[in-house]
Each structure stands twice: as C-alpha cells, then as structure tokens.
C-alpha cells in the first residue's frame, strides 16, 4: 500500500477573510488591553499574566510537540507537524506581552516591594531567588532559549522542503534532545515565577508539572483545531484520516487524565497534611463565589473533556473533536484564571471586558502569524522522509 501512496499537496492561498478576522481580533484586543491599563492597571496586569502564560502554553507546548515527534521518531504527526511549527512562531509575540508585566511588577508581585520583604522573615529567606534582578535574568534567559530553539528547529525543517535531506532530520533530533530538558526547566520555572510567586508564601513542589500538563493540553488543542480547520478546507496534504484525528484526541484524553492526576495529587497532599502554610492557597479559592469557580474547574477541566473524549467515535469525528479542542483551550484559560485571579479579587470571581482583551489579542496574533507564514511557506513538511509513512499511518 505504501508504494501506491502519493503525496498530493497543493499550496493554496488563505481567503482574505482570515486576515481580516485576525486583524480585527488583534486590534480589538489591543484596544481593550490599553483601555484596561488606563482604567485599572492592577487588574490588567493580572490579566496580562494569564495572557502571557496562556501564550507560552500554546507556543512552547507546540515546540515541545515538534521536538517530541523528532525525538520519538513518530510518523503519525509528520503530515501536520508544520502546523505546530507555525504556532511556535508565536514566540516572537511573547516579548511584547511580557513588557507590560515588567512595567507593572509592583502591582502583582508583592515580593518586589523591599519594605515588605524586609519586614517578612519568609520573604527575606526567599529573597536570593525572588528578587527583581534575578527574575529579569531568568525570564530573558528563558525567552532567549525558546527563540533560539524555535529558530533552529523550524529552519532545519523548512530547509528540508527543498533539499529533502535525511541529515536535517538527524540534526533536528539532536537539537530536540537538548531542548527537552531545557523545556522541562524553563516551563517549571516559568510556572514558579509567574504563577506561584503571585502568592510568595505558598509553595507546592508539583506546581511546575501542573502547569506543564495544562501547557500540553492547550498546545494539543490549538494544533487540533488548526489541523481540522485546514484539512476540512483542503489546505493540507491529502490522506489525513480519522486515525490521525484519533491520535490527537487520544493524546488530549491522556493529558486530561494527567492533569486531573497532578491537580488531585497536589490537592490531596495539602488537604491531608493540613498545614496552615499550604492550605491557605486552597482556602482562598474556597471563599465567596470562588467555591463555585473551583468546583467548576473540576467539571470544566476534567469531567466534560473526559466524557467528551472517552469513546472512539468522539475522537475520530472531526466535528466532535473540534468542539472538544475548543473546550479544552477554554478550560486552560479557565485554569489559569483560577491560578491567578484570586490574588486580585479575594472576595469573589470578577469577569468583564478586562478579561477578554488578552485572549482576543493572542488569538488574533496567532491567526495573523498563520496567514503570513502560509504565504511564504508550505503548510506541509513536503520534504520530510517520514511524510509518506505519516500519511499511511493507520491504527
């Protein structure tokens, strides 16, 4: 059968509607963000952190997806690997979203106030790690690592479209092998710096893994949405079947369970040990309307995707899979909101146009990036030696 498979790929232009939708979302998002910063800088900075970590999840998660494919020698994801590669170009948007946070550090991180740190024994002890200078060095270092590896991997992959050399795959495997441990470190410390240090007295050793599980879910969901949409409109290589969708769905299902496992592990130990220095984090999220929000997290992030992706047809049917992917992406935003916003509003959940600015901006920016890249580059890694086997992939 493999001998009969032909790679049928026709490069097609996106309709101009894509660009206008992306642009509209981006501009509207930017307007909301700027307006939000004028009205309530503190609230907007918290939203900025949600947006920043949300984009990292999609972008760096996609980079992780690409490097895992290389490292594992997977073939099933090769026909749409380029989609994940396109998403990694979002790494160039990250600095722009980071800048407003850096300008408003004092509004969100109270360990940045020297007078607070000096009067607080715990924060004093943590100061060698939690200080503004080291924080800046860390995040700039992380961005540098991400951008470097994004460039290396995508460049080699794109070069292969024309040269069709096997050696480029080998090169990318080596680069991926270096990237994976760096990914583990950077994503863990990103979670600690931007999410855990919002409450600098609190600590949880599993927190990095918690953010990682959400990261993979968000990037898988974004890739799945893009793959289904582009494949339905014939932008991708012919021959993608329900088996490919099934594999994406199965991975999302697995990581949904992984998230629940990690989130519950974190909760169970804190609940059992009942130590005041740990429990207050959950108690904050059990006050006022946060109770409903916390229970909602279990349902939205675990129960619904679990039953939504449990059966085989639900993973093979592009329509149902698309709905579940959008749901999971939303659930990741919901999760980040759960991690961040109780620090802004102790009494209860707040939601209005402030919260919409960053998601719009990010989605708009990603659509525009896709649109731009699709003009210059192939949407399929047509030179990859694994492509044929990838199209042939059957369960």
């Amino acid at each position, binding site marked *: *059968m493999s001998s009969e498979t032909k790679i049928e790929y026709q490069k097609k232009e996106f309709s101009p509607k894509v660009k206008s939708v992306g642009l509209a979302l981006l501009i509207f998002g930017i307007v909301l963000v700027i307006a939000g910063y004028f009205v309530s800088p503190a609230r907007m900075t918290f939203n900025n952190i949600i947006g920043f970590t949300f984009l990292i999840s999609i972008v760096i998660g996609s980079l992780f997806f690409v490097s895992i494919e290389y490292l594992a020698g997977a073939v099933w994801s090769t026909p749409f690997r380029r989609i994940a590669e396109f998403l990694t170009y979002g790494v160039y948007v990250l600095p722009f979203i980071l800048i407003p946070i850096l300008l408003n550090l004092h509004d969100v991180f109270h360990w940045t106030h020297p007078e607070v740190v000096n009067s607080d024994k715990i924060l004093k002890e943590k100061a060698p790690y939690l200080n503004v200078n080291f924080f800046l060095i860390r995040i700039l270092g992380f961005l540098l690592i991400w951008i470097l590896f994004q460039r290396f991997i995508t460049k080699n992959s794109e070069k292969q479209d024309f040269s069709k050399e096997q050696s480029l795959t080998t090169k990318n495997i080596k680069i991926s092998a270096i990237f994976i441990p760096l990914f583990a470190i950077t994503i863990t410390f990103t979670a600690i710096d931007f999410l855990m240090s919002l409450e600098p007295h609190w600590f949880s050793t599993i927190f990095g893994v918690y953010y990682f599980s959400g990261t993979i879910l968000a990037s898988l969901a974004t890739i799945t949405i893009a793959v289904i949409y582009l494949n339905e409109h014939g932008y991708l290589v012919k021959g993608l079947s329900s*088996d490919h969708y099934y594999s994406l769905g199965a991975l999302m299902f697995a990581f949904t369970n992984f998230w629940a496992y990690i989130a519950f592990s974190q909760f169970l130990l804190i609940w059992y040990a009942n130590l005041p220095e740990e429990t207050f984090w959950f108690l904050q999220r059990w006050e006022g309307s946060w109770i409903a929000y916390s229970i909602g997290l279990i349902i939205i992030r675990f129960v619904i995707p679990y039953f939504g992706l449990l059966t085989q047809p639900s993973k093979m049917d592009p329509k149902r899979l698309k709905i579940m992917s959008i749901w999971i992406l939303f659930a990741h935003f919901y999760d980040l909101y759960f991690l961040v916003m109780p620090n802004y509003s102790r009494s209860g959940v707040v939601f209005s146009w402030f919260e919409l600015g960053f998601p719009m901006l990010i989605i708009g920016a990603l659509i525009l990036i896709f649109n731009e890249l699709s003009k210059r580059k192939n949407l399929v890694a047509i030179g990859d030696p694994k492509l044929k086997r990838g199209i042939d*992939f059957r*369960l």
Partner: protein
Amino acid sequence: MSDKILYGYSAIFDKPDDIIKAAKTVAEHGYKKYDVNTPYPIHGMNNAMKLKPSKLGYISLIVGLSGALAAILTMWWMSAVDYPIVYGGKPFFSFPAYIPVVFEVTVLSASIATVLAMLFIFFKFPNNSHPLQGTEYLKKVSSDKYGIIILADDEKYNENEVKNLFQSLNASELEPIYWDNDEINHKHKIFEPKFILFLVVVAILNSGAVYFVYNKLLFMVPFNWMMEQERQNVQQKSLIFSDGFGMRTPVEGTIARGHLPYQFYGKPDLAGEKLINPIPVSKSSLKLGQEKYDTYCSPCHDYHGTGQSRLNGQFPNPPSLHSEKLRSWSDGRIFAVITEGQNVMPSYSTQLTEDERWAVINYIRVLQRAMNAKESDIK
C-alpha cells in the same frame, strides 16, 4: 476427504499490502464470515475488514463504574457508619481520601473484567479447540505469511467463486480447510458426569478432612499435649479438693503480700488520720511515681497538676492539685481519694497497686513543692 465437513477456504499471501487489499476486496464482495490471520498486527486491518469497534469496552466501563461505586460504598460503610474513627481531624466521610482507592479499584476491576470477558465471552473459554489448529495454513501465517479464510457457513459461500476471487488477487497458495471429525463430536470433558462426580467427591473428601483435622485430630494424643496440661485452669473443677472448687480463697486470717485490705471505705477523713505513707521518698520511688502519674493522672490533672486537662472539653477539668486544701491534706487523705475516687474521678485501685499509689503521692508532693516553693528552697 469427501466425508469431512468443510470449514472454509483459505488463501495465503506473501506481502502485508496484499493481505490488506485482499481483506478489502473480500469485504466489498459482501462476505460476512471470514477472518484474517497474520504473524503480527497490521495497521489499517480494522478498516480494511470493516470491523465494528469491539463491544469489550462496554464491559470494562460497566464493571469499572460498579467497582468505583462498590469502593465508595465500602469505605463509606466502614469509616462513616460501622466503625467511625477520627483520622487526622478529618470528617468520617472524607471523599478526597477515598479517591486514590476508588481509582485503584476502578482500574483493577475494569481490567480483570476485561480479561475475563475476553476469555469467557469472546473466546468462548473453556473451549480451546479450533479447526485451524494443526493445519499447514496456521503454521505459515504464524511465521512469515499472511492468510485469509472465508468460512463455509457464509451465506454467499461458493467454492468456485471464492477460488476465483483469491486467484484474481494473486494468492500464492489456496487450500480448503476441513473440520476435524473428532472435534465436531467433541464435548468438553468438564461437563461429563464422570468429571462432575469426581469434583463432588473431591469436595466432600476435602471438607471432611478439614473437619476431621480441626475438630477431632487436634484433640487426640499426641496432638493435644500442648492443650492438655497438668494444671488447674481458671474456673475448672478441682479433683483434689473435696468441695470441688478449683479457685481457692485465702486461708482464714491471712492476706496476700501487697494486698492489704482497705479499711476506710466511705471514711476518707479517717483514712487521712490513720494511714501513714510507708514508702520513703527516694529517687526510685519518685521515678515510679512520675511514671504512674504521667500515665494515669496527667490526662486530666495535667503533667504539672494544674488541672488544665489535655482532654479539652471531653471531660470536666479537675481542680488544681496546688490549692491550699490539697497541700494541707495528709498523704493518707490523698490515698483515700485515689483508692475510692471522688466526685467524677473514678477509683484507681485496680490500675495502681498500693505501693504505686503511695509513690504517686510522693510525686504529687514534689509537684506541689515546685509550684509553691518555700523561702528556704529559693535560697
């Protein structure tokens, strides 16, 4: 050959691509009863054969959910209803603690049910015979060839058509496969009356042997030597004494050592006057007193006798041992309280021997002295 019953018609292919194509073509021709045998799982075969998803998953789901429910009910019954004990200050029914167990039981029951259902329902265990067993065909497809077989009881089965179909697909070998005559008339030996009778006999022998060992053999010589000893057991009839009582009262006018009868029941003040502490204050007596005090007295009276009970609220707090009254009491008066109890305090005569009671009193004196030291002590 003619007396044999046809099972199906088989074809052998050399390449995995060919077998997928063959399976597809056979399915397209409308055959329902056919099977493919390959040395390893071939990706895409489910689609080619147009197989429906297995029903096995439903069994896993149902048994898994039942397992989860059973685990929750068991733990709820054990820890919240039948034997409620406070663990770590958590409620009796604390669901987060159950989740790991529920998870494990769900996985365990679902996986065991899946395997058993696969064996008994889908593979028709204990049936372990199959017409393909021992055929040349099976030998080939379990090493390096790929085989397909159309069964003779398929509605559309026609030997010539099937043969032509396989030939058009370039099958390398064609072969009809017949039922083994022994196998057709084969009945499972486990349903034979002889075997069932054998099982019944074994069961009866086994239970009889167990009954004999536990109820008879252990009471025979020499197995009863540990149990039957030359000794007077409690409540046992005596063969020596004429009145037949095994348990004897002390000889009249004597008492056992360390068991001086207490003569002042109901008269604690008299006890305070008459009784004198026979235990001199010494390091060992104070140590004994502290040990016993910490064990029996301190839960209510506190380690320092302040009366700030460790059993906060579960038992009324006793008055302090440092009051003027208590310090002016004689040792005998305190001995009376320990022996008889007072108000809510029960008697401790069974927990503490007389000597221990006196030692405790010595230790209480130490506590009192420590709290209300004299001028001379400070110098």
